[in-house]
């Protein structure tokens, strides 16, 4: 190893300072959420607020847990988020492949129309979609919470960008080898873009995990509700029990962190190279 210049060391120091400061700043709300969940009812409204709870009220968790049928909500949410994620990955991979490597009539127009659908706020589509679901007689079913989310332009477009980075030559070579398109897609394209696909999986899972209004609209029975519906149980027209909302939020977040850590480990395992060596 060659001796390092003072400049490089200074650059390293700057790098760590920026990273640590940034991490603290981005982490603040998360830490706040955890600490708030342990405050008493009178401490949570205290002005100016305290950072560390005077007394750790672990009972908030028990109280929040008892307010709604969380175990059932949990099962519903896991099921919906998993199926939606797997489904949306599949449809997005297929369509991203079509957009990046296949040529077909009307491709540009269809792609533009795809993009155009993103440009109208979802709030405008809600009621019409609700009526569609009613007509399909899907109210109070898992289908209603999964199927409309199986197509996602955000993810399709993201994967298209990644797939188009894969040289066409590779695809042509596979063709010469009489490798079918599907085989090429799943044996070569997908493994090559494992990072991107895992990222999409995480994004989709979180999106589905946190969705609130749509599942509320299309379900009528408590049995079909999801975790995010547990959060509004602590609000009323006159105020919000923030310590309980925070406790419930913490309960809500733990599974996602576990999924993230699991998937992230999976990404890193597959990598032989971890970055620019300085």
């Amino acid at each position, binding site marked *: 190893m060659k001796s390092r210049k003072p400049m490089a060391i200074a650059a390293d120091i700057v790098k760590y300072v920026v990273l640590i400061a940034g991490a603290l700043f981005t982490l603040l709300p998360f830490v706040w959420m955890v600490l708030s969940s342990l405050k008493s*009812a*009178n*401490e949570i*409204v*205290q*002005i100016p607020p305290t950072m560390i709870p*005077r007394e750790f009220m672990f009972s908030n968790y028990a109280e929040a847990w008892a*307010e709604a049928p969380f175990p059932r909500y949990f099962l519903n949410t896991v099921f919906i988020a998993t199926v939606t994620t797997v489904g949306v990955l599949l449809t997005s991979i297929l369509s991203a492949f079509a957009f990046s490597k296949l040529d077909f009539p009307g491709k*540009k*127009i269809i792609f*533009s*129309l795809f993009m*155009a659908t993103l440009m109208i706020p979802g709030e405008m589509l*809600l*009621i019409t979609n*609700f*009526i569609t679901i*009613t*007509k399909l007689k899907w*109210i109070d079913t898992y289908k209603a919470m999964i199927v409309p989310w199986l197509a996602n332009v955000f993810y399709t477009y993201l994967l298209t960008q990644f797939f188009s980075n894969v040289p066409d030559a590779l695809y042509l070579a596979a063709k010469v080898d009489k490798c079918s398109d599907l085989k090429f897609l799943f044996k070569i394209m997908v493994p090559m873009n494992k990072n991107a696909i895992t990222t999409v999986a995480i994004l989709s899972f979180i999106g589905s995990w946190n969705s609130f*209004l749509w599942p*509320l*609209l299309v379900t*009528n*029975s*408590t049995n079909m509700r999801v975790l995010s*519906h547990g959060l*509004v*149980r*602590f*609000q*009323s*027209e*006159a*105020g*919000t*029990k923030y310590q309980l909302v925070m406790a419930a939020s913490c309960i809500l977040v733990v599974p996602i962190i576990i999924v993230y850590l699991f998937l992230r480990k999976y990404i890193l395992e597959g990598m032989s190279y971890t970055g620019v060596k300085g």
Partner: protein
Amino acid sequence: MKMKKLMALTMAAVMGASLLTACGSGDAGTTTAAAGGDASEIQPVTITFWHGMNNKQEQSLTELTNKFNSENEYGITVELVNQGSYSDLQTKLMANAAADTLPDMAQAYNNYFTDYVDKVVALDDFVKNDYPDWDDILESYRTENSEYGKITGVPFNKSTYLFFYNKTMFDELGLTAPKTWEDLKHIGEVIKEKKDLAAIGYDSMCDMLEAALRQHGEQYVDETGALFNTAGGLETVQFIMDLYNNGYARLVGEDNYFSDSLSNGMIGGYVGSSTGVSYISTDIPGKEFELGVAPVVGDVKNAAYNAGTNLVMFSKDANKQKAVWEYMKFITSKESTLKWAMDTGYLPIRTSAYESDEWKNFMAQDITAQAAYEQSPYGFVSKASFTGSNEIRSVVSTTLNELITDKADAQTALDTLVAAINDVLE
């Protein structure tokens, strides 16, 4: 090039859709009620009730409903469905009104259904034939539920705006709870001078304005526009602007509600919902105080703003309508409304409940209930049965905020408010 094609396609799609949907003006048939009053014929049935009650309120509602389900003689089962918060409930009802899949009954404010009042079952016949003591229900609630020219609902979870104050601070300064506008000004002066704090704040600005107008013998708004562009209206606005311009009152600003400010000794008192009392903390270390609760002030008249939803019926089936009515009778009975009020902090809806021994005993230990009782004869509910009523609420609140921030004079404030309201209704 690509975009041009896209535009052409979009336009074509729009025109196609117009052709398809233009003929589709839905029928506006009014949902009619079955002839009420012959409960003997009710067949066993399950009815669905959508509500937005959480926590202890939901608990109490569940207990009451279980009692009804097990005790009613017709085999009626009421199924409670929690729909989140009020705004979630409002959105769900709108969507289901559009899809024509409304539940048998629901909690609702009158301004939820301005657009689909024809889907709300008229209860006039039920009341006439099968509700012996309708007059026992407080007048303001009866008026509210008749606003649309038919009886649209029965009152359910009712609250009122009260004056919550720091009694420790008031005692220290030799003050008592204000009864009149003059009292309020005096208190504002003293607290401003001695503590350099505002004496009062209002959680809801539009409700404050309407209450003040009524207290001064003026009218507020109806479907034709603002009704307070009068000498009395100017005096009312003058009174309000003076409170703020002199620092006797302040806006809620960055906080959610004034309950936090009161808990922290940062304001003398505030006017807020009677159900908000559970959000006031009187025991923050170093800031402990005794809470006082009083009726809101009056001027030439007394007027207190009431809030809270009603129960409305949507069911189209005659048998279900009768079943819903049985439940409505049960939930608005003296016994139910008393239990409900004592469990939740909402108010009884009947005079007989207010006058009962149970309530008197309850009031003896509950200062909020006591204050609410004192002002119950002066309650009013804001008119909401016209298009734009909801928008006026938010427009009045934001306009008042802005006028107060700008320290506007009374005439400017009045003109701006009137113009803003009339603008909505144009």
